C-alpha cells in the first residue's frame, strides 16, 4: 500500500480542492434559507425602508397659520405660505385654537401674523411674524424656521417684482450640486447599499463559518489534506461574489425603481465595492474564528459591523459633528470610506482622487483583518 507523499502534489490537486470547496459553499448558500434571507430579503427590506420610509425631506410639514387681522396684505402673505411646497397649512384666527395641536404633535409649528402686522408694515415699524415651533424635534424645528424665513423672503421678493418695496441689500444664491432637488432618497439609497454589503460580508460570513465550527464540519475538513489558506479562500470567494450580487441587485433597484441617478462608471462601482468586501469579509472571518459560535458571532457582527456602518459612517449623521473620540473611531469603520464614494458614483460621477484614497484605506483595513483572521484560523483546534 503506498500513499503518494503530499509534498509532490501538483497544482491540479490544489485547484480541484479549491473548486470543490467553492462548489460546496455555493450549494449551501442556495439551500440555506438564512443565506437567502440575509443576502436578498434583508437588502430589499433595507432598500425599501430607505427608499420610501426614511425621508429627511420635510415636505408637507403641517403647520397652523393664524391671521389675527384679515386684510388683503395678510391674505397675500398667508397665500404665500399656502402655496409653499414645504407646508400644509391650516388657517385660523386665534393662536389658541392651534396650541393644543402643537402640544399633541399634530402640527409642527404655528405661524402668527399678528394684529399689528399691517400697521407696522405700512408705517415701516419693523413688522414681525411670529413662528412658534415644536422644539421637541429639533431637526424638524430647524426646517420649519428656515422654511418660514424662506417663504417670507420669497413673498417680499414677489412684492418687489410687483412694484413695491426695496431689493434686499445682499442676495444669496444657493446652488446644491449633484442633487439640486435635495431628495434625501438620492443619498440614503446609495448609503444603504454599503450597509447591505456589510450584512452579507460580515454578518453572513461570520454566521456560516461559525456554523461549520458548531457542526463539527470544520474539524472534518481540517483533518483532510486541505490547507488553512485553501479553506479560507474557498469560503471567501462565494461570499465575495454573493456580496457583489446583492450589491448589483440593490443598484438596479436604486436606479430603476427609485430613480436615483447613476452618473459614474460601473467600473468605479465594482472597484469600490470589491475593495470594501475585503475588510467586511475579513471582519466576518475574524469574528467567527474568535467565537466559533453562531449566536455570539451574530451579536458581535451586529454590534461591531452593522451598527458602526449605520451610525458612525456619515450615512445619516455628520461625522464632523461627533465628539472627537468618536470621530477617531470612525476612521477604522470601512463603511465610512465606502458610503461617500458610493454617493459620489451615483450622484456626482467618477471622482478618482476620492476613490483611490478610499480604496487604499479600505484595502489597508482589509489586510489588517485578514492578518488577524489568518492568525486565529491555523489548522489547530482547542
Amino acid at each position, binding site marked *: 500500500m503506498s500513499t503518494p507523499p503530499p509534498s509532490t*502534489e501538483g497544482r491540479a490537486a490544489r485547484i480541484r480542492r479549491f473548486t470543490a470547496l467553492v462548489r460546496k459553499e455555493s450549494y449551501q448558500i442556495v439551500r440555506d434559507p438564512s443565506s437567502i434571507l440575509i443576502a436578498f430579503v434583508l437588502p430589499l427590506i433595507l432598500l425599501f425602508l430607505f427608499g420610501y420610509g426614511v425621508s429627511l425631506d420635510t415636505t408637507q410639514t403641517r403647520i397652523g397659520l393664524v391671521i389675527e387681522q384679515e386684510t388683503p396684505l395678510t391674505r397675500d402673505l398667508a397665500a404665500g405660505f399656502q402655496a409653499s411646497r414645504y407646508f400644509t397649512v391650516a388657517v385660523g384666527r386665534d393662536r389658541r385654537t392651534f396650541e393644543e395641536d402643537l402640544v399633541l404633535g399634530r402640527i409642527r409649528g404655528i405661524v402668527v401674523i399678528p394684529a399689528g402686522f399691517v400697521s407696522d408694515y405700512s408705517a415701516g415699524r419693523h413688522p414681525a411674524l411670529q413662528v412658534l415651533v415644536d422644539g421637541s424635534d429639533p431637526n424638524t424645528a430647524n426646517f420649519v424656521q428656515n422654511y418660514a424665513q424662506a417663504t417670507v423672503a420669497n413673498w417680499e421678493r414677489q412684492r418687489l417684482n410687483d412694484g413695491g418695496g426695496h431689493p434686499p441689500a445682499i442676495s444669496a444664491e444657493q446652488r446644491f450640486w449633484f442633487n439640486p432637488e435635495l431628495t434625501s432618497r438620492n443619498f440614503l439609497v446609495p448609503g444603504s447599499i454599503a450597509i447591505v454589503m456589510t450584512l452579507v460580508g460580515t454578518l453572513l460570513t461570520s454566521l456560516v463559518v461559525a456554523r461549520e465550527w458548531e457542526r463539527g464540519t470544520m474539524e472534518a475538513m481540517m483533518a483532510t489534506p486541505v*490547507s488553512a489558506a485553501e479553506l479560507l479562500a474557498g469560503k471567501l470567494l462565494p461570499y465575495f461574489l454573493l456580496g457583489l450580487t446583492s450589491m448589483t441587485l440593490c443598484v438596479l433597484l436604486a436606479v430603476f425603481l427609485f430613480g436615483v441617478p447613476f452618473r459614474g462608471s460601473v467600473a468605479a462601482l465594482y472597484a469600490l465595492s470589491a475593495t470594501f468586501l475585503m475588510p467586511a469579509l475579513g471582519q466576518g472571518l475574524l469574528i467567527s474564528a474568535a467565537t466559533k459560535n453562531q449566536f455570539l458571532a451574530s451579536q458581535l457582527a451586529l454590534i461591531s459591523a452593522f451598527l458602526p456602518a449605520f451610525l458612525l459612517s456619515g450615512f445619516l449623521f455628520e461625522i464632523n459633528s461627533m465628539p472627537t473620540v468618536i470621530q477617531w473611531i470612525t476612521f477604522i469603520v470601512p463603511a465610512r470610506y465606502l458610503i461617500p464614494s458610493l454617493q459620489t458614483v451615483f450622484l456626482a460621477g467618477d471622482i478618482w482622487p476620492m476613490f483611490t484614497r478610499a480604496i487604499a484605506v479600505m484595502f489597508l483595513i482589509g489586510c489588517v483583518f485578514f492578518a488577524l483572521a489568518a492568525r486565529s484560523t491555523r489548522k*489547530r483546534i482547542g
Partner: protein
Amino acid sequence: MSDAVPFVRIVDVVKRFGNAPPALDHVAGEILGGRITGLVGPDGAGKTTLIRLMTGLMAPDEGKVEVLGFDTVTNAADIQAAIGYMPQRFGLYEDLSVQENLNLYADLRGLPVAERAATFDELLEFTDLKRFTERLAGKLSGGMKQKLGLACALLRKPRLLLLDEPGVGVDPISRRDLWKMVENLTAEGIGVVWSTAYLDEAEACDSVLLLNEGKLLFAGSPSELTGRVADRVFKVAGVSKGRRQTLARYLDDDNVVDGVIQGEAIRLVMKPDTVPPTLDDRSPAPVAATTAPRFEDAFIDMLGGGPGGRSKLAETQTPFSTTDAKPVIEAHGLTKRFGDFTAADAITFDIPRGQIFGLLGPNGAGKSTTFKMLCGLLKPTAGEGRVAGFDLRRDAAEARNRLGYMAQKFSLYGDLSVAQNLSFFAGVYGLSGARKRERIELMVDIFGFARLLDMSAKDLPLGLKQRLALACAVLHEPEALFLDEPTSGVDPITRREFWTHINGLVEKGVTVLVTTHFMDEAEYCDRISLIYRGRSIALGSPDELKAQVATAEHPDPTMEDAFIALVQGSEEKEAA
C-alpha cells in the same frame, strides 16, 4: 510491512484545557495496523482529545504523538494526507446530498478522477446507500449518516481510520453493520481506532486503551482485562421474584464487588476467592454459577467496585400502596400521525404499580413519539394515555403533578446553580415553605451536593449532573418516573448508583417508564415493548424476549441479539 511497527505511538502525553484537571494525564500507548483498537471510557474520559491529538489538529502540552512515523506537531499535513477521520457528528454537510458530500471529500482528499466511479460504487454498495445518493445528508437517519461519514473517511483508502464515537445515537442494528464494515477493513491491513463509551463494544475490539478521567487504566487485549475477574463472575438464577431486593442484599455484602440485574438473573462480581453469599432465608434459594466475565465486570473491579445496595433516596420515600390493582401508566391505542406518516400506531400497554417498563427500538421507530405522548409532550392523534388514573388530555396538569421526568441530555438549567435548580423544580411542582426546604435538604444530603450548591449546573462533572437531574425529577415524590436514556455516556459506577436508587424507588411502589438503546438499561426492566416502524412488535420480560430468539446453535442470546433478531424478523414478515 512488519506488524511490529506501530501505526501510532503515544508517548507520555499530557493535555490541559484551562485550569481544569488535565484532560489527558501522562497517557502512553501504541496502535497497530490491521486491527481495531478501542478507545474506551465514559464521557469526559479524554477519548476525543486523544483522537484529535492523533489527527494533528491539537498539539500535546507534554509528550508526543507519532502517527505513521510522522510527528503530529511538525508533520501534521503528512498525517492528514494518509488518515481517514470521522468526528463525532460525522462531519457531514447537512445541506449537501449524499453524492455531493462524497464528491466534496473525494476532491479534498485528491481521489483521482479515473478511480472515482469505481470507488463511489464500491463504497455505496458497501454502505448500502445507493438508493439515497440524491438525498440531503440532513434528511438521513442516524445510522445512515454514520455510514456516509464512514464512506467519506474511506474515500481514499487511508492507512489509519479514526472513528470518534461512531456508535452514539445509533441503534444496535446500525452499530453492528458498521462494525462488520470496519472489520473487513482491518483485513486489508488498515489500522482502526474506534472510540466508545459502550463497554460491550470494547469487548469486541482486538485491543483497547481504557481511559477514565484522563488517565490510562489499561492497555492490551480485552480478554487480558477480563482475565483479572475470571472465575469471580457469577450468574445467580432463581430470583425472578424480588430480584431488586435480592440485588440490594447482595450489594451490601462486603465480598461483592459489583452486581447488576440481568433480566431475571443477577450478575455478581466477587472478591478473589469468595463465592456469593447464600441467601437461605429465600425460597427457593438462589443458585449461583460462574459465568464468562465481561469487559464491564473487569472495569468496575479495576475502579474498586460498585456502590452498595442501599438507596437513601428510596428509604425516605413514602411507600405507595401496591395493593390496588389499577395500572399507573396506561396506553390505549396510542396513535400519532404526522401528515400521512404514522409515527406510532395503536400502541397499547399497561404498567402496574412498582414496575419498570422499557421502550426499545431503532431510531425513528416511534419509541420517543410514544414516550412523548405518555408524558404529555405530544398530543396523540387517536387513543388515550393515562398517568395515575388521570387522562393526559383532560387532566394534563393533574397527571403531570404525579410524574417525574429525566431526559438523556440532563435538561437542567446550566446557568443556574445547583441550589437554584433544586429550588426551581421544587417550585414548579408546587412545593413551598417547610416542605420545600425539607425535600431540598434531603436531596442535598442524599446526593452530597452540600459543597456544590453555588456551582453552575453546567460546570458539574457528568456524573454529578446526572445525580442532580435525578434529584430534580424526584423532589416531589412522583408516582411515575419517565426516563429517557437516563444513563447513556455516564461512567459505570454512577450508572450503578443510579439504578440502585431507581430499584429502591420501584420497591416502594414508584412506577418507571424508560426508553433506551442501551442494552444494560433494558436488562433492568420488568417488561419491554420493542417498537419498530411505529408498532409494538414484541412485548414481554427481557428473558421472554431473549427466549423468543434462542436457537439450538445460539442458546443464550444477549438482549442485543434479541433486539436485532426481533427487528429483522419483523422486517422479513413484512416483506413476505
